[in-house]
């Protein structure tokens, strides 16, 4: 009898907590927030119809800032929080907790009419930093590069600098785009275009993915296998950030995201699941 009462009380408390905090605010990365998280949220709502979501995908920086400011329960980020961001959060009594939700491979894309099929790590660095300015310098048809990058609030923008450009500055001629889709669209239109997008966007029309010739002499393309095996050089984890250990509805959604249903969607959208840890 006591056990039954206890179960009933627990159920009532859970129901109460859901109804009291029935809105989940998620802000941050466009990489995660454009497709994946809205789809997972829809699936979660099917199980918890009382939950409302507010999702804003305006860049990883905004997601981390939202946790610091307390304006979101989950901050989406395609990059690690910087020490200065962790410090700023601590100053406000916020302890950032990173949770890897999936992996991504940043693919180098060119127009489908471009004859090049591969670039070396060094050539990628040279192109995006502006060390070279013409396709002929990397074995392509003559013509100046049109470089498309993400904007500065994007985690992908920072990650690309770290992974592909040895933390150097972007070429002054590079054009900043709001999201992956915009980069893919511009490269699709421009025969001299080059950019980078997450794995979920490599199947956009009129673009193709360029292989990366590594120091081991092997050409790597971004895929589930190469990202999981960490053999693709531009692979990275993507994160949810929460204020401390997640609890309540936030914890439920994070668990769902990391669970079988959430990770199936990760794969369906084009990212690489976390897998067995």
């Amino acid at each position, binding site marked *: 009898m006591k056990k039954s009462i206890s179960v009933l009380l627990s159920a009532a408390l859970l129901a109460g907590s859901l109804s009291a905090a029935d809105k989940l605010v998620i802000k941050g990365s466009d990489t995660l927030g454009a497709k994946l998280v809205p789809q997972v949220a829809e699936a979660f709502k099917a199980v918890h119809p009382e939950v409302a979501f507010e999702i804003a995908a305006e860049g990883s920086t905004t997601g981390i800032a939202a946790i610091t400011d307390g304006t979101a329960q989950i901050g989406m980020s395609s990059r*690690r929080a910087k*020490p200065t961001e962790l*410090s700023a959060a601590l100053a406000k009594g916020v302890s*950032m907790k*990173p949770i890897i939700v999936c992996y991504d491979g940043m693919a180098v894309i060119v127009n489908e009419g471009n004859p090049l099929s591969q670039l070396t790590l060094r050539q990628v660095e040279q192109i995006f930093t502006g060390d070279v300015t013409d396709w002929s310098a990397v074995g392509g048809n003559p013509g100046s590069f049109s470089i498309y990058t993400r904007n500065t609030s994007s985690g992908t923008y920072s990650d690309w600098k770290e992974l592909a450009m040895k933390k150097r500055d972007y070429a*002054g001629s590079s054009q900043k785009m709001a999201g992956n889709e915009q980069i893919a669209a511009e490269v699709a239109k421009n025969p001299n275009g080059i950019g980078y997008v997450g794995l979920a966007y490599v199947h956009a029309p009129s673009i193709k993915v360029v292989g990366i010739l590594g120091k081991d002499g092997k050409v790597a393309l971004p895929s589930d296998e190469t990202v999981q095996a960490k053999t693709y050089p531009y692979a990275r984890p993507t994160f949810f950030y929460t204020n401390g250990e*997640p609890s309540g509805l936030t914890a439920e959604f994070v668990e769902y995201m990391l669970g079988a249903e959430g990770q199936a969607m990760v794969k369906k959208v084009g990212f690489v699941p976390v897998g067995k*840890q």
Partner: protein
Amino acid sequence: MRQFPTALLALVGGIALTAATAMAQDSGPLVDLLVKKGLINDQEAEEIRSELSKDFAANTSAGKLSLGSHLTEFKLGGDVRLRHQYQTTRDQETTSTKLATTNRTRERFRFRLNGDFLMQKGWSAGFALETAPASDSGNQTYENGGDDYGLSLARAYVGWQPRNDLKFVAGKQRNPLYTTELSWDGDINPQGLSEIYTLALGGKDTLEFRALQSIMDDNNEATAGRNGNDAWLFAQQAVFTKYFGTTKLVVAPGFSYTTTSNMSGLTNETPFNGDTIGLALGTFAGELEFGNLGGQANSVKLYWDTSYNFEAGTRVHKVYGLSSAKWNKDPLAYLVGVGYNHGSGKLQGDWGVKLDYRRVGVGAVDPNLNDSDFAFGNLNQSGYKAAVSYNVADFCSLNLAYFLTSDLRETLKQSAVAKLDKSSILQIDLVTKF
């Protein structure tokens, strides 16, 4: 949710935090290695990274420093120099009676604080604060019953290096020219624009072209004549550096010209307030350094400098007012010196000695730019500088310098910048860098 791996955090964090502040941020490769070895998974690695960063931010001084993300490097440093100085001077006589020698001791100090910022896209900026406002000295003599002393802004500049071989600097800046104390006091920071183009010649060999446009004094253009012109110094120089194994040769021919103007209000050691005409200087400085002697970081350096004023006649006779019948224009100055460094000069126990001879003709150099310690910046002098230094710690040195000068020509008519008969200065310094 996975539990945080406390033992591993303790291991990694302990190593990082107990070793040094910097290690907390540099432990990424260690965490990556633990992942690679399968000791922790990616999620645990992220939590360790995050905790280390938080500890760094919360428990270290450096972690609390917030710098703009556009900064790629910030260097803050400086030094404090304590000096005991004993000096003697005697002016040239104007009659047959010899003037007395004056003696003076001075207890002095100099404080300097430098900040240099490197930013993205080749931009830089910086500042320097130091005691005393004079252009050629940061020394402050202890005086006035223990009054506190002011700080002056010795540098404030913006730099831009669009390419590795090209650099521009604007503002009050470090001297961009290759110079010796013969014609340019080491404390003087020019103000204006400078450009350096570097031609790589293979190996470490280079040919640099340096140019400086420095405003020396501002005048009100509403005033008629040269008193209404700003005074500008235009200097150009080629600096050729060639290595022969461990031997380095530097030769630096140059030319500088000061525009027609009139300067006033100068506070340097021996200021010349007046016309700027008659300063067209051809210079040739250089050094030959034999490095790595005895397989150590010891070196012997021969160094030299010369200055020839192509308009010395105008300078001496019209500007300084010295009679052309009694004074020749004396357009030549030169310096030759030799030095030995035992060690690199950066480590405890390193020491060095050097000795140079200088001759400064009355028309040869700009008295507002030359070394303020050699004959107190006076012209018409020759003499020696001997110096010894010893590093009592990596960051602290004990230095001794002695200057001894006498006039090149006996007085025929005094001038503000050539009135000195003899001088000596003994300086004993304790310099601590921070």
